[in-house]
C-alpha cells in the first residue's frame, strides 16, 4: 500500500511556472483558476536580501479539515494511498471545504461547480507516470513518490534533508514537505 507524498526542494525552484501551466493543461483547469501556485517572497532591505521560492498545492493532509467539514462525503481521504480526493457527483458546492482548508488549496471549478483541487494527478500515477507538475518541473524541485518505500526519491530526500511542512501548528499533518536548507552545515 503506497503512501504518496511530495517533497519540494525549494533550493532548486526557479519560479518558472512550468508546473502551474502543466497542471492546468493536464487537468483542464478553467481559465484564471489554479491547482498549484508559486510564491516568491523576499525579505530584507537592499542590498541584504533573502529570497524564498515556494510552490504550493494541496497537502493531501493526513488530518484533512476539508474532508472533516464536507457535509456530503464528496471530499474523502482514500484509504489505500492517502490521497485526498473528490467524488464530483456528490459535491453540492457548499464551499465548506474551501473555508476549512488552511492552505487555500481549493477552488470552485467555474465550469462544473464542484470544489476542485489538486489530486496528485491520481489518473497519472495510476498509469505509472509522475504528476504533471513533477514531470515538467524544470528545477526538479518537485519530487513525488511513496513514503513507505525507503528507496523512493521522497524517502531519500526526507532522510537526507531537514524538512518542514506548511502551518504545522494547524495540525493537518501535510504530505507535502518542504526542503529549505542543506542538511549538512556547509
Amino acid at each position: 500500500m503506497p503512501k504518496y507524498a511530495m517533497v519540494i526542494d525549494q533550493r532548486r525552484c526557479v519560479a518558472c511556472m512550468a508546473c502551474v501551466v502543466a497542471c492546468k493543461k493536464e487537468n483542464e483547469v478553467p481559465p484564471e483558476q489554479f491547482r498549484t501556485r508559486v510564491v516568491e517572497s523576499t525579505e530584507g532591505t537592499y542590498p541584504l536580501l533573502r529570497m524564498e521560492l515556494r510552490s504550493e498545492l494541496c497537502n493531501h493532509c493526513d488530518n484533512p479539515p476539508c474532508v472533516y467539514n464536507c457535509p456530503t462525503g464528496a471530499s474523502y481521504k482514500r484509504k489505500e494511498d492517502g490521497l485526498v480526493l473528490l467524488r464530483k457527483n456528490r459535491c453540492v458546492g457548499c464551499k465548506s471545504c474551501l473555508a476549512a482548508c488552511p492552505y487555500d488549496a481549493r477552488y470552485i471549478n467555474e465550469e462544473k461547480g464542484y470544489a476542485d483541487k489538486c489530486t496528485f494527478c491520481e489518473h497519472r500515477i495510476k498509469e505509472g507516470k509522475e504528476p504533471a507538475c513533477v514531470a515538467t518541473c524544470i528545477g526538479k524541485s518537485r519530487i513525488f513518490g511513496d513514503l513507505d518505500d525507503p528507496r523512493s526519491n521522497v524517502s531519500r530526500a526526507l532522510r537526507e534533508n531537514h524538512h518542514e511542512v506548511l502551518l504545522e501548528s494547524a495540525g493537518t499533518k501535510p504530505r507535502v514537505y518542504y526542503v529549505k536548507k542543506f542538511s549538512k552545515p556547509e
Partner: protein
Amino acid sequence: MTKSISRRSFLKISGATTVGLSVAATLPDKFLLWAEEQGMVKPTYTATLCEICFWKCGVMAKSLNGRVVKLEGNPNHPGARGRLCARGNGGTGLLYDPDRLRSPMIRTGARGDGQYRKASWDEALNLVAEKLAAIKKQHGPESVALFTHGTPTDHFLPLLSAFGSPNVGMPSFAQCRGPRDVGLELTFGETIGSPERLDMANSKVIVLLGSHLGENMHNSQVQDFTEAIGKGAKFIVVDPRFSIAAGKAAHWLPIRPATDMALVLTWINVIIAEGLYDRDYIGRYAEGFAELAKAVEKYTPEWAEKETDIPAAQILETARLMGKNAPSVCIHPGRHATWYGDDVQRTRSLGILMALLGSWGRPGGAFFATNASFPKMEAKPFPESRETLNGGGFPFAGAEGVTQAIRSSTIDGKPYPIKAWIVTGTNLMKSIPNQKETLEAINKLDFLVAVDVMPFDTVMLADVILPECSYLERHDALAVGKGKSLTVSLRQPVIEPRYESKPGWWIAKELGTRLGLAEYFPWKTYEDKIKSQCQHWGVDYEQLKKLGTITIADTAAPFITASNPPVFKTKSGKIELYSGELKEKGFDPVPQYTQHQRPKGGEFRLIYGRHAVHTFSRTTNNPELHELCPENVVWVNAGIAKEMGLADGNYVTLVNQDGARSNPIKAKVTERIREDCVYMIHGFGTKSKALKKAFQKGADDQGLVTRYAVDPICGGTGMRVNFVRINKEFIDA
C-alpha cells in the same frame, strides 16, 4: 492525416489524427466529450518541436479527438529532457488563440490604421509576386529585404536568395547575440553556440553577468543551472537587480549598470596578479598573455569599487573563489549581449577570463561541439547578387545581418534603395530600437508583406498579411543539433492547419513558383524534402517520426584530452588574449574600460529583461500565459519610491531623455533593485487592437529606447543607454 473538420467546432472536435477517430469525429460532439471523460478515447502522442522560443525543445503533443490537449517534453530531446518550460507548456494557447490570423488579408485603409479585407490565397500570393517582380524589374532584386527570426528563416531565406537579394536581417544578431558571438570568435575562433555549450551542471562556481537564468527560461540551460544548485555550486551573480538567480547566489554583486567591464578587467588583473590562472593551459593554448597582464594592471579593486559600486574586498573574494575552483568555473558569456555599445569587448573580457581559468574545453566550463556533421546535399546554387547591406559597414558583422543597417538604407536609399520588406517571425516594432526610424523606413517602402501567425504591431503595418499556421500544424526544416553529440529533430504537424492558415514552406514555395523560381523548390511537399534528406543522411525517417529526435551515437568529444586537443580557429590558431585582428581594424586589442554616461538627478537608467512565462512580445496574447502575467510592471527602488511618495501598485508613466512617454505602467516598489535604474519586462504595450488580450497592456520598453549605442566592431545596438523620469499617474489600481 484526414481532412480536418475543425472549422465546425474546433474546440471539441477538430482534425482527427487516425482513421478510426475520423469516423468517431462525425458523431455528435456531446457523445465524444462524454466518451472522452469516460476515458474511452485514447490520446495520441505526436513528436514535434516547440517554437515558443528558439531553444526548440522536443515536444510530445497529446491529442484527443483531434484536439491538442497538452504538450509534454520529449525525453529524447537534449533541449527538453522530458520537460517543457511554462511557455512550452502553454503552446496550445497559440494554437487556439481566437485572435490568430485566419486568412490572407490585403490592406484597404491607410498604413497603420488596421483596415484590411480578406483575400483568397491566390489573390494575395499573386499580388505579392506581382509587386516583388515589379520592384525587382525597376530597382533590382537586392531592393527587396527580408527580416526574419526563427524557423520561417528556413523557408524565406532560400526564397530571398533565389530571388537574388542578399539583404537579410535578424534581430538575433544586432539586438541579441551578435557582440557575444563576435567577441568569443575573436578570442577562441568560435562562438559558444545556441544552445550555449556550457557544462554548468558540473561547475563548482558559476558566474552570471546579467544572465538572469530562471527568468531567462531556456529549458535545458535552466535545468543545468538547477542541477548545479543541487550539487552545491557557488554562484556569483552580477546584476543591478536581485534576480531569481541572485536569490540563489553566494555572492550577489549589485553592480552599477554599464560598468561590468571594469569588474571583469579587475577580476582578470587580480587573477593574474595573484597567480590564480592556469599557467599550463595559458602557456599551451593562448597568446598575448604579457600584453594582457600589462593592459589590465591599472584595474585595481580599489579603482573598480569606485566605478562599479562593489566593495573591493568582495571583488577580491570572488576573484579568488573563481581562481580556487578553476577550471571548473562557468563564466556565462551572456546571450542578450547588446547593452552599451562596447559589448564585443565586454564579451571578450569574459572570454579572456574563461581562458585564464582554463575553463574553455574543460568539465564545468564550456564544452566543444561535436565535430560530426551530416553530408551536404546537392542543391541548385543561388544566383550571384550585388554586395550586401547586411554588414552595415561594420568590420565584424555576421551573416544574420545588421537589422538597423537595412533600415537606414531603406530610409536614405544609400548605397542603393530598398523598396520592399518581407517580414516573418519577427516583430520589428518591438525588437529593434528607435520605433520612429522603423516607422519612417516602413513608410518609405513600396511594399511590405508580413508572414506571421498573430496580428502583432509590425504585421498590422503590412500591405499584405499572409497567415502562417502555428508550429503545431506544420513541417519545418530538420533541426540539426550540434551540442555534445550530433542530433536531428523533426517538426511535424500535430493537427491540420486551422482556418485558412498555411505552413511557411507552402507560402514560400507558392511565392517562388509565382516568381518563376520553382526550380528552387523541387519537392512537392516539405515532408518529401525531409524524407529525401533523411535518406541522404542515413537517418531512419519512420524512427524519427516516432521519436522526434535521433542522437547519432559516438559523436561527442566535449573536453580537452590528450587525444582530443583543442582547435582554435583564430588567426594565430591560439586563444587570442591579445587580438591582432582588432588592432588591425583600429580597436583595442585587449579590452579597455570606458565610462558610460550616468543618469542625472531624477533620472533612472532603463533596463529590461525577461519574464519566465513570456517570450518577448510573442506570448503576450497567449491566453494560457497572459493570465499568469497580463502586464509588466516597472521596478522602482523602495527608498526612491518613498521619497517620491510612490506606493506599490500605483500607476506611473515613464518619460525618457528624448521626451518619449510610455503607457501607464504599475510600479513595483521593491528592495530588489538599485536606486539608479528602473527595470521592466520587454515585450508589452502592444498597439495592435487585433490582439484583444494584450492590447495596451503594460508598457513597451522599446518605445523608450529611442537612443542606442552602436558597437563599432559588429553593429550591435546597445539598448540600455536610455534614461527615464517617473511621473505619477492618478489612476487607481
